[in-house]
């Protein structure tokens, strides 16, 4: 590419009869992407930030009072806000944790190439291919108190003696939403871990077998350490995604009962689009971004400071 690029730059120089140095030429080349980045990322970000400092209501566009950091102070001193943040962390850690354990287990199962592994590999991906909205609708039907599949199954197995209204109790509702999310997202973990497993060197396992290591030892001493980069990638992506969870909540519970499944993204949506408080909504989204940024920072620190490459 380099010779080609030089020839092209020479041609442009001759054409415009301009003495252009490498720097200016580079600038021209990156200009389109700089404009796109500014226009699509930085400008909206700055705009949102400015909005978060104002009392801004979509239904009252004539009033735009500057209030400084009042919205941030309002939320950071609000009990309901912290309960929502707590619930969001609970959702994030429990669902990502289960997904990770389950994902690695299924990936190991596939890589063991037992009978029917090809079928398993395909079948496992299906939930991930289902749109989140559809997934939410499916699980809402499964949990339905009067004609849901879960009640039908448990009743026929004799585990319950009458139908249960599953989503009525706030904490249980949260756990059941997590279950639905795990069903949907664990395949993603399987996918990434499976890909990493394929590329692991076979010699290490051969050597370990010769040295007399059993299966569990091979898993904990060889597989897991070698999988660490893949696990970190999965962790970062899934944590950020789970922290921003919205659609499955919107479809299944709308934050209820008693705000038992009210997570931070749903609260932001409610402030912004149901109450039309654009200022408060913007402030909330900045607070959410701050939390995600901190989480990402934590992961990046682990990712780059430790000897991950092995």
């Amino acid at each position, binding site marked *: 590419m380099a010779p080609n690029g030089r020839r092209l730059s020479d041609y442009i120089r001759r054409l415009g009869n301009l003495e252009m140095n490498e720097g200016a030429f580079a600038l021209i080349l990156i200009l389109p992407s700089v404009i796109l980045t500014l226009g699509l990322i930085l400008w909206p970000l700055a705009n949102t930030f400015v909005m978060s400092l104002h009392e801004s209501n*979509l*239904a009252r566009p004539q*009033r735009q009072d500057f209030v400084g950091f009042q919205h941030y102070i309002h939320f950071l001193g609000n009990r309901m806000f912290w309960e929502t943040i707590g619930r969001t962390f609970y959702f994030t850690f429990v669902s990502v944790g289960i997904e990770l354990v389950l994902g690695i287990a299924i990936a190991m199962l596939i890589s063991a190439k037992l009978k029917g592994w090809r079928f398993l590999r395909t079948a496992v991906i299906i939930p991930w291919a289902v749109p989140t909205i559809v997934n939410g609708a499916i699980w809402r039907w499964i949990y339905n*108190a009067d004609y849901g599949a879960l009640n039908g199954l448990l009743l026929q197995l004799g585990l319950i003696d009458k139908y249960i*209204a599953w989503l*009525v109790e706030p904490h249980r509702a949260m756990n059941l939403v997590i279950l639905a999310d795990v069903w949907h997202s664990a395949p993603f973990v399987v996918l990434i871990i499976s890909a990493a497993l394929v590329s692991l060197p076979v010699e290490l396992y051969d050597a370990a077998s010769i040295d007399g290591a059993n299966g569990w030892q091979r898993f904990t001493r060889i597989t897991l350490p070698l999988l660490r980069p893949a696990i970190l990638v999965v962790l970062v992506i899934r944590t950020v995604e789970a922290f921003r969870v919205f659609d499955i909540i919107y479809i299944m519970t*709308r934050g209820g*009962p008693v705000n038992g499944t009210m997570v931070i993204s749903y609260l932001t*949506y409610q402030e912004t689009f149901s109450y*039309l408080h654009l200022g408060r909504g913007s402030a909330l989204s900045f607070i959410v971004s701050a939390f995600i940024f901190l989480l990402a920072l934590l992961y990046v620190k682990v990712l780059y400071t430790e000897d991950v490459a092995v």
Partner: protein
Amino acid sequence: MKTKRILGILTAIMMLSVLSLGVPASAQDEIVINVVGMDQAGMTPEELDEIARLFEEQNPGVRVETSYVLYDGLHDLLVTSISSEPPAFDVVLVDDIWYAEFVDAGWLLDVTDRITDEMREGIFEAAWDITTVNGRVYGMPWLLDQKYFFYNTRLLEEAGFEEPPRTWEEVEEMSRVMKEMGLVEYPMIWSWAQIEAVICDFVTLLYGNNAEFFDENNQPVFNSPEGVEVLEWMVRMIDEGLVNPASITSAEEDVRNVFSQGQAAFATNWVYMYDLTQDPEESQVVGEVGMALMPVFESALEEGILSATIDGSMGYSVTAGSEHPDEAWAFIEFLTSEPIQIEYSAHQLPIWEDAFESEDLIALNPVTVPMFAEQFPWSHVRPKVPYYNEASRIIQVAIQEALTHAATPQEALDNAVEQILEVAAEYED
């Protein structure tokens, strides 16, 4: 060879460009009216589409594009799509409780001068309250609806009751008998999920206990002793298993499903449920559904309050920024015209007063038409305040707190009133 090929390619390009020019040219002649309606209670999307086709036949050159959402998504869809310039929709369905907010924001076209004398006199007086804000009219009343009381006639007969209940105390007693006889596990189903539906049921019960929701100055007063009694009754009904516990996560459609399966003896819902319970494809209780005046509590009945229910009416409006306001208004006029309203009356009743004397309408709807006339005088509206959505959400959570024993009814309602006053203070200027 080569020239031939190039010629061929050129011809193809020319043909394609002619084709691509042709499409927008024909579309430009047509005026497109974008309409958003509701896929829940009221006329079904199929019926509305049929009416739109009829309108297109009578108005060549105008095309009606319809879209439908569930009620609970409608408000948020509207505020994001009609606050833009130009708005995404020309004709929008607006709930009674949003008119104050939308007019305050300047999103709806003032149509006061477009209302003819014929409309003024022919349409129910109370219906105009829905679309009128500060003396100006912002739309045509559309869905004149209220919650009705439904009961399963077969279950009542099997339990030995001949008449439907008049008071909530009787409902409770009959429910207890039916539960003890094993006729039905949970005799009552309500829509008490954390959505607007729970407010509708709560307000119905409030006025049925001679309590008020908001007073005449739009101040929240539902934490009065009578108001607290209502919530205590709701909690007790759940605790005793007379109300289906799934009510706490149910919307109107869930109520319809449970009632249509024959799994509830009593339910409240909008008028659309009646017709659907008589459809064998949708229901297992065809011919076993009765409608009666919404019950009240005994103490209220003694004071001459025969019934109380919630008014859930809606209107169709033109957006202020619409590029085709005349065509949009013409479509609304067509949609709300008397012949159309009578023809499509299975799932919602006409807004025209004299239609209720028409033999056709009664023949089409022998149960719901007389019921409407009997129930409508007892219908209560929710307050027209610009912060209604926030207030509603606060009460929804308060009711659920009480139902799940996270707070006592008194605490929950006191707390809700306090929060609403805080929100209201923010809107004072």
